[in-house]
C-alpha cells in the first residue's frame, strides 16, 4: 500500500508540491495577520506552529483516499479479501511520512522566519511533534476514509476532525511552549503521557474499526 501510494505520489507529485507551497503561504499569512513584531509573535509561536501542522494536515490527510477515487479503485479495495486493517496501517504509514516531510519543512521555515535556534531543542521538539503527529494522522486517516464516501467531504472532514483533535492540540501546544522555553521534557510529562495515551487509543480504534468503514 505504502509502496503504491509512494509511486503514485512520486509520479504525480500533486499533494506534496501543493502542500509545500501551502506551508510557505501559511507563514506569510501568519506574519501579515500578526504584524512583524517579533516579541508578540514569540508568545504565539507554539500555537502558530501547530496551527500550521493542523491546517496542512487537514489538507494532506483529507486527500488520503483521493487517489482511490480514480477509476473507482475504492471499490476494488473493498473487494480485496482479507483484513482491511492492513490498508489502514498502510495509509497511516504513508500519511505519517507525508506529515513528517511537511512538518520538517514548516519547522525549517519557522526557524528561518522567526529566527529560532532549533538546534538545541530539536530532540525534545521531535518527541512532541512525533507524539502529536501520530494522533493527528491516526484519526485523520480513519475520518478521511469515512468522508471520502460522502458528499461535501472537504467540509465534513475538518468538521469531524477538529473537535476530536482538541485535546491533542492543547497538549502539543502546551508541550511545545515548554520546549521552546528550554524547559526539560519532564516538566510536561503529563502532557506527553496524554499524547501517548491518545496515540494508543486512536491507532487501536482505527485498526479495529477500519474494517467497518471500508465495507460496502
Amino acid at each position, binding site marked *: 500500500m505504502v509502496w503504491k501510494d509512494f509511486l503514485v505520489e512520486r509520479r504525480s507529485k500533486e499533494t506534496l508540491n501543493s502542500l509545500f507551497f501551502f506551508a510557505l503561504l501559511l507563514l506569510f499569512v501568519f506574519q501579515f495577520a500578526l504584524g512583524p513584531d517579533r516579541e508578540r509573535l514569540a508568545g504565539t509561536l507554539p500555537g502558530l506552529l501547530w496551527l500550521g501542522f493542523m491546517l496542512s494536515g487537514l489538507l494532506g490527510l483529507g486527500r488520503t483516499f483521493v487517489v482511490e477515487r480514480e477509476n473507482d479503485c475504492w471499490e476494488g479495495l473493498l473487494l480485496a479479501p482479507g483484513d482491511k486493517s492492513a490498508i489502514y496501517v498502510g495509509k497511516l504509514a504513508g500519511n505519517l511520512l507525508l506529515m513528517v516531510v511537511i512538518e520538517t519543512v514548516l519547522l525549517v521555515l519557522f526557524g528561518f522566519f522567526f529566527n529560532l535556534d532549533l538546534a538545541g531543542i530539536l530532540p525534545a521538539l521531535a518527541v512532541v511533534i512525533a507524539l502529536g503527529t501520530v494522533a493527528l494522522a491516526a484519526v485523520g486517516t*480513519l475520518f478521511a476514509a469515512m468522508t471520502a464516501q460522502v458528499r461535501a467531504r472537504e467540509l465534513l472532514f475538518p*468538521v469531524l476532525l477538529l*473537535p*476530536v483533535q482538541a485535546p491533542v492540540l492543547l497538549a502539543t501546544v502546551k508541550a511545545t511552549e515548554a520546549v521552546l522555553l528550554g524547559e526539560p521534557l519532564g516538566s510536561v510529562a503529563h502532557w506527553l503521557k*496524554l499524547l501517548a*495515551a491518545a496515540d494508543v487509543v486512536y491507532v487501536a*480504534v482505527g485498526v479495529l*474499526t477500519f474494517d*467497518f468503514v471500508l465495507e460496502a
Partner: protein
Amino acid sequence: MRRLLGGATLAGLVAGLVMAFGIAPREATQGNVQRIMYLHVPSVWVAYLAFGVVLVASVVYLVRRDDRADRLAHASAEVGVLFTGLTIATGSIWGKPTWGTWWTWDARLTSVSILFVMYLGYLLLRGMVEDRERGARFAAVLGIVAAFNIPLVHFSVIWWRTLHQPPSLMKPGPGAMPGIIVAALLVNFAAFTLLYVYFVTRRTVVLGLEAEAEA
C-alpha cells in the same frame, strides 16, 4: 408503559423544581444563583450518560448489525447534544453573575463545549450519508472514537485551565453541603434521568417508524 414513564418523568421534574426553588435553602455565599445548579449538574450527567449509551449502542451495532442499536445510538446522541447545549446555556447563565462574564474558558464549560461540537459533527455525518446502512456504520465508528476521546478531552482541558469550582458533590468534606441541597440535587438527577429515558425511547420509536416507511 409509555404513559407511566411520561407521568413519572413529569412528576419527577415538578418535584425537582419544587425542591430546587421551594424547599432547598438559599445558598449563603452565592445566593439564588446557586439554584441553577439543580439544572446544570443533572444536565451534565445526562449528557455523559447519553454519550456512554452512544458508545455501547455503537459497539453493539457494529457487532450485531441490529438496526435497533443504531437507532438507539442516534436518539441518544441527539438527546446528548441537547443536554450539552443545556449545560452550556445554564453554565453561561450562572457564570454571568458569578464571574461577571457570559463566557470564560473554564475547564468544565470548555470540555462540555468540545463534546457539543464533537457530537454535533456526529449528527451532521449521519445527515450527510445518503445510504442509511453506511451512515449507521460511519456514525458507529465516530461514536466510538468520540467516546474514547471524552477522557482525553476531560484531562487536557482540566490541565489547560481551571476556574471552575472543584466538584462539590464528588468530594464532599464532612457537611460540605446541607443534606437538603443534596436531596434536591438527587431528585433532579432522577427526574433528568427519567426525562432522558423518555426522550430516547420516544425518539427511537420515531426513528424506527421512519426506517420502516423507507424500506
